[in-house]
């Protein structure tokens, strides 16, 4: 299992090399990995169906309960199958789409890592590991969205996606930690099985809100939905993958995963169905106001995500069956449609559907695949999308009474996606042939494989419903706590309310499509009006304020004046250390009583010299006074049993004086630069620092917390270090690595000094 998840990362390491060797066919080579994984996951499925969930454990940081544990049950396997299955075709497709791209190797590095991270999210059993993979998907998708990094818009979109999802990720982390603490275990399996009263806990509401914030941002729920359409700046294979099986589905996965544990909460049901329903409607509505093929699809993804979240929120048996069916159907048709949108873009040279028409005769295979996938999107029989949509209507109608709003929203959304499907599958291929920037012809096999297979599966699953029912839907329902044996999918349920709703949608959608071109100007106006007040405008306002505050803060804190930095540092130190010191120990004021005349003399000498060094206007006087302090320090070292220190100090002090005298006297003499007011300010700061240090020493010499560790050094100096000078033994033996580091520092300083002197010499000769 560990290998299955990590193999993507391993292959990513070698991706540039493989790209160079395999050339144009590298997509096919990379696809071997997800294809193998797909087969393996499929092989695991019957076993899991028979024996229930399995947990595979690999200790990572066992002491902190952070382990590479994997939970394999129906839900995680279905997601893993979608990721690896669709991933296979995406990788092949990318090989054709980005053929000859200079950064193809880099693309596959990120893409494979992204896929592996996504597998990690859906398979992790450990909450912390799940979060790590979750963040990895955010980071890799950032790199993928901004892949065309020379494009300003791509960079801005990537950053927007990153900000939104990472902000949500932060909330999620807090939520998961709360959840883990409340349940007493960080293992998902244990959390789900836990009989602790999670919902009665005092943290229940903040925990729920944090987790929902994470899932909603990731899964682009209103009002965080705006990043997803902008993420279209990514190359099409990325969009296809991001929308169909990965990234945005991570949030849905998490909600579904936690539903058995948290689904009972009133708040959970309320928020999920409300925001899900709202997102569903918003997505469907926004989809029909756009003409860019990818934009239309992006908003229809938002609609689908809203639907899925809403279904989890409703949480009845019907809703769970609808959830699983809709999820599979959506992944299949959305993957196919995005790849088709990419083909259209690639072959015609324009992204705008309004500029395309009559392509069916030129691209027969694409047009058929598009028609099948779009029928599934629209939810027409006999495709899997139809079954999913009928179940969704069923679930919504069946929902508890206070969710009356949902059928209305669902009906509106149903109309929206049908129109969207029409826009994407009818407009470009049929009707009058329109001239496009490039002369289109059928796409290469590598680009057709994905759409054809995925659209084919939509059809196959729709006709042979027992396949998805037994292999995908039933296991998912089982792991969501539903009754797997009650799952029964059928195309024909008789004439009932959902069917009537579907027919109603079809009629209205047909009318809208008929007049779509004529409605465009009004829709444009509407969209712009909404854009001004929508959540995206809020995002820009927040970013603007963030920049403004950052600028202001930089101007205040980083103003380039050395003195300001010093004062800030000094006052912060005094404030924080002083506060701690005084609250912990009081002010241990003891007056200095010199124990001998000699001590009094040396103290007087040092203090007077130090102050003289600061006050004098003579450079030489200042340096001399400073060196008197230095030599007095050496004297103290020698007197108090530190001969080595004394010797070193005398040596260094002598060198210092020589150096200062040599260099500093080539600089101008002292002049009064600061005003009296500034000097007083500096004096006050300096005295505060000095007083703090005095109090610090007084407090520190009073208490000893621990036995000094040097007892060991003293005892083992001769026996282990073979030296009689213990300080030297410590330096060259016990702490030899420190000394080595010190030598590096000195060498670096020497190199720096040397190069600056050389530089000077060259300047003068030049």
């Amino acid at each position: 299992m560990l290998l299955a998840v990590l193999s993507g990362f391993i292959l990513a390491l070698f991706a540039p090399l493989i790209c160079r060797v395999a050339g144009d066919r590298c997509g096919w080579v990379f696809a071997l990995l997800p294809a193998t994984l797909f087969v393996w996951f499929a092989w695991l499925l019957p076993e899991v169906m028979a024996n229930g969930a399995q947990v595979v454990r690999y200790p990572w940081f066992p002491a902190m309960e952070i382990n590479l544990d994997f939970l394999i049950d129906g839900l995680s396997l279905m997601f893993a199958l979608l990721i690896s299955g669709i991933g296979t075709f995406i990788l092949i497709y990318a090989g054709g789409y980005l053929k000859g791209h200079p950064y193809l190797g880099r693309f596959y590095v990120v893409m494979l890592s992204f896929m592996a991270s996504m597998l990690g999210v859906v398979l992790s059993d450990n909450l912390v590991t799940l979060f790590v993979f979750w963040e990895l998907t955010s980071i890799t998708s950032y790199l993928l969205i901004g892949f065309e990094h020379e494009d300003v818009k791509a960079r801005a979109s990537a950053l927007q996606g990153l900000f939104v999802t990472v902000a949500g990720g932060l909330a999620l982390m807090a939520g998961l930690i709360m959840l883990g603490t409340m349940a007493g275990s960080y293992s998902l399996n244990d959390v789900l099985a836990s009989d602790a009263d999670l919902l009665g806990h005092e943290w229940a509401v903040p925990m729920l809100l944090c987790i929902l914030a994470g899932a909603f941002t990731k899964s682009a729920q209103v009002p965080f939905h705006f990043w997803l359409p902008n993420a279209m700046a990514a190359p099409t294979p990325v969009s296809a993958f991001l929308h169909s099986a990965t990234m945005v589905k991570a949030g849905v996965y998490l909600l579904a995963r936690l539903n058995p544990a948290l689904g009972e909460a009133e708040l959970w049901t309320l928020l999920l169905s409300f925001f899900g329903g709202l997102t569903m409607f918003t997505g469907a509505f926004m989809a029909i106001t756009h003409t860019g093929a990818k934009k239309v699809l992006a908003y229809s993804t938002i609609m689908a995500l809203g639907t899925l979240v809403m279904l989890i929120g409703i949480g009845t048996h019907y809703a769970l069956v609808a959830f699983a069916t809709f999820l599979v159907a959506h992944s299949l048709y959305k993957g196919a449609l995005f790849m088709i949108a990419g083909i259209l873009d690639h072959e015609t040279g324009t992204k705008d559907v309004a500029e395309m028409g009559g392509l069916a005769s030129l691209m027969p295979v694409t047009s058929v695949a598009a028609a099948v996938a779009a029928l599934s999107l629209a939810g027409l029989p006999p495709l899997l999308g139809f079954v999913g949509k009928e179940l969704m209507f069923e679930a919504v109608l069946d929902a508890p009474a206070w969710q009356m709003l949902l059928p209305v929203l669902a009906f509106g959304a149903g109309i929206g996606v049908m129109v969207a499907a029409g826009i994407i599958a009818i407009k470009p291929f049929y009707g009058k042939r329109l001239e496009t920037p490039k002369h289109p012809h059928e796409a290469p096999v590598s680009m057709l494989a994905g759409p054809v297979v995925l659209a084919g599966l939509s059809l196959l699953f729709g006709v042979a419903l027992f396949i998805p029912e037994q292999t995908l839907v039933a296991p998912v329902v089982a792991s969501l706590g539903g009754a797997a044996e009650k799952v029964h999918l059928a195309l024909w349920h008789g004439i009932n309310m959902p069917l009537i709703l579907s027919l109603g949608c079809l009629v209205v959608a047909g009318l809208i499509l008929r007049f779509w071109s004529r409605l465009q100007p009004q829709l444009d106006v509407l969209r712009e009006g909404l854009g001004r007040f929508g959540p995206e405008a809020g995002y820009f306002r927040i970013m603007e304020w963030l920049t403004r505050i950052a600028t202001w803060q930089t101007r205040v804190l980083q103003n380039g004046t050395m003195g300001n930095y010093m004062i800030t540092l000094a006052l912060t130190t005094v404030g924080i250390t002083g506060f701690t010191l005084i609250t912990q120990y009081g002010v241990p004021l003891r007056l200095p009583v010199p124990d001998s005349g000699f001590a009094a003399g040396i103290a007087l000498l040092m203090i007077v010299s130090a102050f003289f060094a600061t006050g004098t206007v003579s450079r030489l006087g200042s340096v001399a006074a400073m060196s008197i302090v230095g030599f007095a320090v050496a004297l103290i070292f020698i007197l108090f049993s530190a001969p080595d220190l004394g010797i070193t100090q005398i040596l260094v002090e002598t060198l210092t004086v020589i150096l200062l005298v040599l260099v500093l006297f080539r600089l101008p003499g002292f002049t009064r630069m600061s005003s009296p007011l500034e000097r007083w300010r500096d004096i006050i700061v300096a005295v505060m620092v000095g007083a703090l240090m005095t109090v610090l020493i007084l407090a520190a010499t009073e208490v000893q917390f621990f036995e000094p560790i040097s007892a060991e050094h003293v005892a083992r100096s001769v026996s282990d270090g073979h030296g009689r000078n213990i300080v030297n033994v410590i330096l060259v033996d016990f702490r030899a690595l420190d000394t080595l580091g010190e030598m590096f520092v000195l060498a670096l300083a020497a190199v720096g000094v040397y190069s600056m002197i050389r530089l000077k010499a060259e300047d003068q000769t030049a």
Partner: protein
Amino acid sequence: METLMAYIVGAMFAAAVYMMLRRSIVKLVIGLMLLSNAANLLIFTVAGMRQGAPPLVPEGAEVPASAVADPLPQALILTAIVIAFGVLAFSVVLIHRAYEVVGTDDLDRMKDTDT
């Protein structure tokens, strides 16, 4: 002695900080030297001061006959003294170089060079 040292170190710190707050770059260097001496002395004092007991093992013995001064702070200070000298040498040359390039020893006027 430790109490007296506390006041000496405090005075040295005050003098050092005051010097480092001056605008003359030469004073900054002198302040830096005072600061490193003050810091060394602080560690030395806090570790406990003991007269006439250097951390040496007499010839023929395995361990010192009686208690000796703590050798570990001494080793740390020794490192600090040498590093401080390295920093000083580097900063002195850097300052001299900066003066040549910028043409001023006033720190407040040096800040405009990067804009």
